[in-house]
């Protein structure tokens, strides 16, 4: 048992009121389990509303899970007090999607990056200044710019500031929630390479959440595919890309534009229909209304996530278990 973090059967519901004032239950995360080994990069991929961001936040206990347990190095986080949780947060950090709204526009860069050190009362002012400069250099920012404000930086540089802020406490787990989605593709490549370089040097584990299959496929070692609050498939990167088992995973791969004009979508089978509302998900397997293989069993009962081949799990009645 050498997992850094184990989440078991996590559920997170939100109550949404409609315009008549009636409450509806939205099951954002519906019984998800995952584990992350030290230094591992786990990718979560799924379309909007599948619960991937809620899962990321629930794992850090930024949202309290409604049920399920989260274990950090063998200790159950549910029993942690506020003080213990605060101390633990040093070890888990987050990088957000939007480098414009996740940085305080009224603070200088050096103060933004130093904030985690101040919160955790880690160092003397001199030591803090030294560490800020060191981490700025490490993420490719010129320390001479430390007195500038976020608006004076480009989108890619701002994302580097966000990474520096996450890195300064030397965390063991970083959750990247769509960390490169707002960036231009040439900048996206720089940031992905930077995350890989830093991981190699510091050895932190990463939970990489994205809607972009190509990005997750490139960076992650293990991939979880989510659809309407549930994990439909999880496997190592090679196993998932070479042999996707769930029809939704296959649909995602098919729909993804290939970088080759001679293999166009017009020649492929693409999945039809919209993603159903998570407020009112279909019965049984959530994917059955869009699935070409669905039959009566799929409409009636939800398939469990089961191990089809070693390390390769799928939640589908048709995956040949």
């Amino acid at each position, binding site marked *: 048992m050498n997992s850094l973090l184990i989440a078991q059967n996590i559920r997170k519901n939100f109550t949404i009121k409609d315009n008549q004032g009636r409450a509806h239950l939205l099951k954002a995360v519906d019984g998800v389990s995952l584990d992350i080994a030290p230094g591992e990069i786990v990718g979560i991929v799924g*379309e*909007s509303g599948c619960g991937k961001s809620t899962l990321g936040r629930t794992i850090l206990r930024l949202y309290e899970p409604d049920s399920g347990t989260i274990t950090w190095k063998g200790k159950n986080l549910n029993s942690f007090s506020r003080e213990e949780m605060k101390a633990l947060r040093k070890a888990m950090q987050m990088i957000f999607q939007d480098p414009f709204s996740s940085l305080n526009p009224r603070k200088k860069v050096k103060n933004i990056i130093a904030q985690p050190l101040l919160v955790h009362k880690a160092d003397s002012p001199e030591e803090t200044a030294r560490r800020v400069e060191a981490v700025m250099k490490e993420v490719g920012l010129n320390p001479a710019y430390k007195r500038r404000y976020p608006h004076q930086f*480009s*989108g*890619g*540089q701002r994302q580097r500031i966000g990474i520096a802020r996450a890195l300064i406490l030397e965390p063991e787990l970083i959750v990247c929630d769509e960390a490169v989605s707002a960036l*231009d*593709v*040439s*900048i*996206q*490549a*720089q940031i*992905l*390479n930077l995350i*890989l*370089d830093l991981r190699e040097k510091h050895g932190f584990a990463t939970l990489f959440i994205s*809607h*972009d*299959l*190509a*990005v997750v*496929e*490139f*960076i992650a070692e293990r991939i979880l595919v989510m659809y309407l609050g549930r994990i439909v498939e999880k496997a190592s990167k090679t196993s998932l890309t070479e042999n996707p088992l769930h029809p939704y995973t296959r*649909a*995602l791969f*098919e*729909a*993804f*534009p*290939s*970088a*080759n*004009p*001679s293999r*166009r*979508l*017009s020649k492929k089978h*693409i*999945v*039809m229909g*919209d*993603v159903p509302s998570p407020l009112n998900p279909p019965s049984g397997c959530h994917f059955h209304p869009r699935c070409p293989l669905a039959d009566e069993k799929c409409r009636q009962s939800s398939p469990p996530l089961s191990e089809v081949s070693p390390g390769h799990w799928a939640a589908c009645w048709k995956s040949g278990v």
Partner: protein
Amino acid sequence: MISNELLKIDALCVSFNTQRGKVRAVRNLSLGIAEGETLALVGESGCGKSVTAHAITRLIPMPPGLIESGSIHFRGSNLLSFSEKQMRAIRGSRISMIFQEPMTSLNPVFTIGAQIAEVFLAHSKMSKQNAHTKAVELLKLVKIPDPEKRAKSYPHQLSGGMRQRAMIAMALASPNPGLMIADEPTTALDVTIQAQVLRLLAELKERVGMGLLLITHDMGVVAETADRVAVMYAGRKVEDAPVEEIFTNPRHPYTLGLLGCQPSAPANRGAPRLTSIGGSVPDLLTLGEGCPFENRCNRALPVCRENFPSAAAAGSAHTYYCHNPEAPQTEERRS
């Protein structure tokens, strides 16, 4: 050059006056689209691709914007010489536009059906009843399920994919659509919905026989839909070629870099790091007369700083603008 030319842009220069000075958003841009052709205009934020689209439809706010020079010929007549009244007759009938975020380009207080019918009523004489029937027909054409009912829906009652279909239906609400300009039409959509919308656009283009100017930053979308590709960088066109040529034989270092940093590029499969372009896009305010890519280019020569190269041809339909281009790919290396 092209006999059945639908749109021809010649030496277009567009600038904006800002507090910090004059920004030259589009510099000396020439483009052509043939009848029925799909041209993809590709580039990263701030490269001038959307400004070009707005210049064609004359939707650039002036001031602060200014079309400094050049011409935009649509089926032989120069749009830049048209009066505002003449332009209004063209917009929505001969040239239509669809935008990235359908929620902000649809009016939230009118039903989808009423908004499509309005286009018919603005450009031709017909009864309201008739316009509504035609709107429902268009919703059926873009494969919106249950079109009679959906015509009575408001934009917020539709999903993102359906809204974009409604926008496409509106763009088709014309007796004679010649050119559709699609500005990042699938960027806000999920990947399975994006695939549906791209296929729909290709089918409709075939059926209606219109030209399509597709503006995107996504090389995957380009590979899926385009006949020809023009790559822009910091206001300049740097390369223009048929889609297979762009992917197999790029000559401008920026085109090669843009292809290389896509995580889905063949060269990145299983690679420990992505190929990346160092540095970032230069500030348009401070750009001189040289090649704008010079500061990030690994093939830059002293001359690149001095002046922007003139067009060079690599085959009949392939032009690039580079002093020190990449070597051409031989047939063996392509396969």
